[in-house]
């Protein structure tokens, strides 16, 4: 999944979508994952990234990432693939 190129992400968890004019707030984990997505990292590797960065097991990381990606998609923050 890719994040739209024109999405603005601030370090303190503020997102702006110029396409829709919507603003969002995200937490620290959300920012870190979004940054990975922007860098083109694949989902499987993001799970490994999460496990390396935080105290979390693989299944929980996968479940949370799936949920997060579905929310990004529903807010139209992702590119059509």
């Amino acid at each position: 999944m890719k994040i739209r190129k024109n999405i603005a992400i601030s370090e303190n968890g503020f997102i702006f979508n110029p396409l829709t004019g919507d603003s969002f707030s995200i937490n620290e984990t959300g920012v870190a994952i979004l940054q990975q997505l922007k860098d083109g990292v694949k989902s499987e590797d993001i799970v490994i990234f999460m496990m390396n960065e935080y105290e979390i097991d693989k299944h929980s990381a996968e479940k949370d990432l799936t949920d997060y990606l579905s929310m990004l998609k529903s807010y139209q923050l992702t590119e059509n693939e």
Partner: protein
Amino acid sequence: MKPHYESPFIQKLNAGMLNKFGSRTEYIPVKHIDNVPVAELMDTFGSPLFVISEKTIRQTYQKALKTFKMRYPKVQFAWSYKTNYLDAVCRVFHQEGSWAEVVSRFEYEKAIHNGVPGNLIVFNGPDKSKEDLKLAVANGSLIHIDHFDELYMLIELMEQIKDKTARVAIRVNMDTGVYPQWDRFGFNYESGQAYNAITKIIAQEKLQLEGLHCHIGTYMLTANAYAVAARKLCELAASFQNATGNSIKYLDMGGGFCSSNTLKGSYLQGIDIVPTFDDYAEAITNTILQFGFKPNELPLLILETGRALIDNAGYVLGTVLATKRLSNNRRATISDIGVNILFTSFWYNHRISPAQDFTHHAEETALYGPLCMNIDCLRESIVLPLLKKGDHIVVHEVGAYNMTQWMQFITLRPNVVMIDMNGKPHLIRKSETLDTIVENEIVPEHLL
């Protein structure tokens, strides 16, 4: 050491939009109850778990008693068994000086089992059999007559009992200016039914009318209704005195005082709108004091307060089983606390706090229980910090009615602990097992 993990979270910002469900209310986790760590309680006694604070019960009781006693010389609380009849809870109230108020043979026997002398038991309720009445008469209990059938049954019974009188009161229902009017208990005041019952009792040698009782409603949001009720009971007491020359010994104002829980559909939080003990006491005692009783004939004021004395002493602790998304992308959280054990979630928006640290992020979630039933919803909408599987939650003010109205349904009822005055938890009701349920079942021989 790796940083604390919080599930990734994104929330659309709607500047200027009001949230009809209200904003976030929990800012600090509830990690302790009476200085006992919540996590430790759950490790030892399991999840879900009911926790009762003995300290809170005693403090609330003493506060309520003081509030009435500073205004009126003769006050007596009678613990409403149906509100919470766990033996340990009842015994705390009895130790504090409370009588027992019961509404069935089962509750009556529980009060006796808890060491309450028969003459300090108030026997209410519409269902008293001849045997129940016989027992109550023998023990000198206060029998609160609910209907004419009961009155005539008691008259018949007393014809067979020698050398005993029955100590009775009538239950009176009335218009106190609130809706809905509770008119199913007792005899109606306005129609003259209550006075007819009194007249009938006066004519009986073996019935001694000691008191007048009312139970005007539940969760009464206006203290003034009690002033109206007290006035009407005083009028009846005066009529009785005019007719017999005897005075009524007690007025029992029943229950119905609010706890600070928030009713569903209420715009404001319960704590902001419910009357205080002072408000109720002022309304009731002013009315009786100003009615014109002679100082030596002031009736004893009995109160059957249940909810307002126990609700804030009870908690239920639970664990998050799962989080998921609903079809409209709303967050849903599933906990192990079901409506079968938290009956009051049908009419309250209970306050719910996380029991571990959290960040400033919060999201709106539907909070469900573990039952495979669509009705198993604790909160349709609540703004909570981000929760994940395994996190603990604390539901507040669950001391009233849950531990009596709970159901063994789909799953078993959990442990109940009481934290004593020194901060030591005691198991006061064991969780159920399969044996608890099947021991009363009988399988016919051909199915064995």
